[in-house]
């Protein structure tokens, strides 16, 4: 089968590549050929020193019970098992534990993650390739062993492949060829991150198929293991399925986390002192291992900074000192989800950048540089007007933007503030729900013109008189007015304005500004534009 398909595939690739790029054909001289796969490769990390049970337990702190459950359910060698469903929230060590256990047991398995195999076809190909010991390489044009789109073909092919593999295993174990290296003749199929499959097909045929695969195959020498981040009751299916036996991985407890963070540390005393200080507050926020470790590792560096040698055994005094050094950093770290480190030289650059700003403060230009990216003036006006259009109800535009804008909306505001309270709350609730309102392009442009023209006036009279004839006046005017639509599009690209759904009445697309209020205020300040005066407060 594969023999009859490979040539055709290679032909196709060459043809496409020829159309794509002239230098398409890689020089095969440079490439090394990968060794062919054998049954050994079905075992985790072949030719490795065997893992003792104690190593297994110690290498996975806080997962003792789960390991025991897994071992029990997997049972002794060559014993059939009913499908297993391993669940628990993200980064609770599901995958690593199972892989570890299989390495300990040295049993052949086929792992395929539904994250990497992002649709049904990829999943099928992946499983079949592993079972058929097929490896994508340059020689076969990176093609997969079998072509199968439909689940029906998949089941047939899978059955063939499984039978083949199991026979091979039986033969080899009987002939003692790879004894001790591949253990038993059961093959286990592991499906990782199964929760993603729910989003694959809305018709929902794949998921029931996977759950019933054991019954459909009727091969006794295969074990199915599903790994999911959400529990069984979230897998809805109209006809339902026989539940697999579930194993639950709870989140790590604080002790478990401490053990994990204490692993292979140069200076355990210091580390434990650090963890005493830090671990508790952080666990109040999240107990996810990955998030904690990303948050803690920079903190630990900071913690160690005052020390000259890292092997010192900290006594109470030093602990207190170190803690006092660390204290200011903890709060920010708690409230940060993405700590961006920056390279040293650049860091310096930024520093003196800030220094300059400080210098500017002396001259009193606070507004300068509050927004540290470049925007043209018209874009800024557009942004501000978009913000206004999203925040203010459209009915009040007239009262805000007439000639006597300020005073009028003073009145307006007082009136609204006298409105009854529940109405206010309702509107607030509505704001919370719908977020910033949408507006048609016309309204945006109208507001923009009001704002910009009021500013153009101030612009003209500080350009010098001769210039106003040539460059000021109408020049400035249509200078700001021209290619506004370009500006709108570039604002959309910068995610400051998003295209909302189209309005039900006329088909025009509506926009919505997603910027936060303080950013808008910054921009307005940099324009010396009294934003708060125009903003409608509920």
């Amino acid at each position: 089968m594969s023999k009859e398909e490979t040539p055709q595939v290679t032909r196709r690739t060459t043809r496409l590549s020829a159309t794509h790029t002239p230098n398409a054909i890689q020089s095969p001289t440079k490439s090394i050929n990968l060794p062919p796969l054998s049954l050994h490769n079905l075992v985790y990390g072949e030719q490795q020193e065997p893992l003792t049970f104690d190593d297994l337990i110690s290498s996975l702190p806080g997962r003792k019970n789960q390991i025991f459950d897994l071992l029990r359910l997997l049972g002794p060698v060559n014993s059939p098992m009913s499908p297993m469903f391993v669940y628990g929230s993200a980064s609770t060590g599901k995958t690593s534990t199972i892989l570890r256990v299989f390495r300990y047991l040295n049993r052949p398995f086929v792992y395929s993650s539904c994250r990497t195999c992002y649709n049904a076809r990829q999943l099928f190909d992946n499983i079949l390739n592993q079972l058929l010991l097929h490896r994508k390489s340059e020689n076969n044009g990176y093609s997969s062993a079998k072509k199968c789109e439909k689940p029906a073909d998949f089941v047939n092919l899978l059955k063939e492949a499984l039978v083949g593999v199991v026979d091979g295993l039986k033969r080899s174990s009987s002939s003692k060829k790879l004894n001790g290296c591949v253990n038993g003749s059961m093959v286990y199929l592991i499906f990782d991150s199964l929760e993603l499959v729910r989003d694959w097909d809305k018709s929902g045929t794949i998921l029931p198929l996977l759950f019933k695969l054991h019954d459909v195959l009727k091969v006794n020498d295969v074990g199915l293991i599903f790994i999911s981040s959400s529990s069984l009751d979230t897998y809805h299916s109209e006809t339902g399925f026989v539940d697999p036996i579930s194993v639950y991985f709870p989140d790590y407890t604080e002790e478990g986390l401490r053990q994990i963070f204490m692993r292979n540390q140069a200076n355990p005393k210091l580390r434990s002192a650090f963890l005493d200080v830090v671990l508790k507050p952080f666990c109040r926020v999240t107990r996810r291992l990955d998030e904690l470790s990303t948050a803690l590792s920079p903190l630990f560096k900071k913690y160690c900074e005052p020390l000259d040698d890292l092997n010192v055994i900290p006594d109470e005094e030093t602990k207190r000192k170190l803690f006092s050094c660390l204290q200011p950093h903890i709060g920010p770290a708690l409230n940060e989800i993405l700590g961006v480190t920056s390279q040293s030289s650049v860091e310096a650059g930024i520093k003196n950048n800030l220094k300059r700003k400080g210098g500017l403060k002396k001259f009193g230009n606070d507004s300068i540089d509050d927004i540290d990216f470049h925007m043209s003036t018209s874009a800024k006006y557009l942004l501000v007007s978009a913000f206004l259009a999203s925040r203010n109800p459209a009915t009040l535009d007239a009262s805000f933007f007439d000639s006597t804008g300020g005073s009028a909306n003073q009145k307006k505001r007082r009136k609204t503030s006298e409105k009854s309270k529940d109405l206010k709350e309702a509107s607030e609730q509505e704001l919370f729900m719908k977020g910033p309102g949408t507006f048609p392009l016309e309204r945006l442009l109208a507001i923009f013109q009001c704002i910009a023209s009021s500013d153009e006036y101030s612009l003209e009279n500080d350009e010098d008189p001769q210039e106003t004839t040539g460059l000021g006046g109408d020049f400035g005017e249509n200078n700001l007015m021209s290619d506004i639509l370009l500006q709108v599009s570039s604002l959309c690209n910068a995610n400051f304005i998003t295209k909302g759904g189209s309005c039900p009445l006329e088909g025009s697309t509506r926009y919505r500004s997603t910027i936060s209020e303080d950013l808008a205020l910054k921009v307005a300040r940099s324009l010396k534009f009294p934003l708060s005066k125009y903003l409608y407060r509920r």
Partner: protein
Amino acid sequence: MATADEVHISDNDLKPFFVLHKASNSQQHARKPVGRTSRKVKVNLSSSLAASDESQLLDDQLHKNSRMKNFHDAWVKIESTIKDVLHNINADVFNEINGWVQKSFGAICSSGKLDTNKATCSYPIVTDVTSNQIFTAFVVMSNIEFVDDLQTFADLGVHLQSHGCHMANLSSVDFSAKSGIGGCLRSLLRQILNGSTDAADISILASWYMEHDNYKNPVVVIIEDMDRCSASVLSDFILMLSEWVIKIPVILILGVATTLEAPKNILSSKAVQHLSPSKFFLGHPTDRLDAIIEAVLVKPCSGFLVGHKVAAFIRNCFLRQDGTLTSFVRAVKMAIVQHFLMEPLSFTVKGLLDEEVAEADAWPRQALDLPSCMRLSEPKSEALLSGASQMKEVLNLWSSVVLCLHEVGKNQRTTLLDLYDEALDPKLYNLRNSDHLEVKPDPQRPSWNYDMHGQSFERQKGGLISRTIRQIRDLPPAALHQLLEKWDKQTEGVDMIHEKVKELRLQEDDNLKEPPTRSRKQTIRNNGNSDKLSEKAAALITCMTREHMQPIECIPFHEIVCFRNADKLQAALVGDPRKRIQLDLLECNKFLKCSCCCTKSHNVPISSMHDTSLMYTLAQEHGNLINLHDWYQSFKAVISQTTVKDKHKSKVSPSPKKRKITAQPQIITEASAQARFCRAVTELQITGLLRMPSKRRQDYVQRVAFGL
């Protein structure tokens, strides 16, 4: 002119303007001879030895080619300089990024190379919790306009590739929600494998990596504009990579347009966990612009300069309209084109201002007719002879002074853009010479730098330069020392200034020679004379500005090299197509000159108007939703009332167009009226002024017309 048009067409980024501005070009046709004749008038009455028209025309014919040639190599020169400047600006950032890439690749490899089977296996290799993180660089462009940095990222890709990395330049097109994760994987594989594969599967990448180099070089993926990517797809991509992170050493480089907040807002928190980010900053657009101005306009690299108004215009474009270098460069190019088109004498500019040209070459005789040398006192002949060299050194003086000023201004973030603009102003120059430069405390602190806010400061009082000079006073000695060094560098080759700077430095040096340990009296004294020193520096720069900073427009013969016509440039650049179209539609009578319509003011609809413009005039009466039926009725009413009108107008001025109508007035049947109506509506739609009826509102068209 024809050649000029070819120039327009030949070049891509000019095309739209060419298309838009046929009209203005024709105006050029119309206006240019006028300008010349006026000048000729002067000639005739000023000097007896004036060339006659046809000889001059002949000359023009002769010089046209040389002018085009000049234009070409001038432009080539400028282009190359710009490229170099940008390259130099980016160079160090690129090197930093490269170093970072190598470092993080080392960090990845430190976890130990995997053997081929392990590296291509399907299960993740988890050694540690933090080990499944992807090294990521956020390259902050700090400009919401993305155009300038496309090239930058391409260069970055080349740069890294030259250091052996396997590159893939992806953009937001690959991360569209429609094509999904498969799309970006496919294009990634296509770029790295140099050939397409049937299925987009990341395990292919793994085996390819093992085949072609195992753990010699990293795989670097550049995503140019992260802000535009579809959030979910990007997150999925990152999560998928994180499963292969040790097996394939992938390093991400994400271009962030605005702020570092953007990634957090876009990516899901799951994906964010898998990034170990670090940030890099590309040059701020204003800094880049300063560099370009310095290289191109301040240090005249090609015999072409711009006048004050043009400079102001370009500056305004950058600050107010779209702050992209691309548009700036486009403006400069436009200016050059027009200069060489309109200035008859510009053929002599050939290599005027570069070093290798001998002093010998003189201005042509016609140069004498230029208005700028009308007021020349000295005898014309040697003015002609020495004109070039004089101009050259004046310009050098000017540029060096401006650069010195910029050096002062730098540490207060004064942009060269503004300095340049101000230094070009002839009125300021005259003002300065009638000296009251010092005595002016600036009122209400104007936002003199970062003028991207568009709040242009009171320039007519030269606030910026005087303030910059005042800053020298309160400089600390160390800063002053650096400043003087910089001046020394800047004024290389300009002797008259260089000497002064030298002696200033000498004084400063013996100040510094005094032993560091001293009594406070001495320190006071030292402070005193350091103050004195700064005073001196201030005085020096002041007199430099007063004497040597002579704007180009105050130099005789400047018309030859200097382009001043800002209006034309604006007309060429800031085309307002929609407005144009609407105006033309509303007063079509100006274009098709038929007698009947001209008499009327343009907004009363008449039957003899062209259908489309008639329709559009009628449309003015409606809101932005036009009921088709009403519209059609009014249209038909107008075109059918002709017969009545034409009766008594035909005797006034019979024009063929109207006679056609009067001949068979009853020809306007329902059918033909509808046909004309439909055609007109379609034309309006094609010109983009209408949107056709939607499903929901069958009988309404919508006006999509702005700018009026």
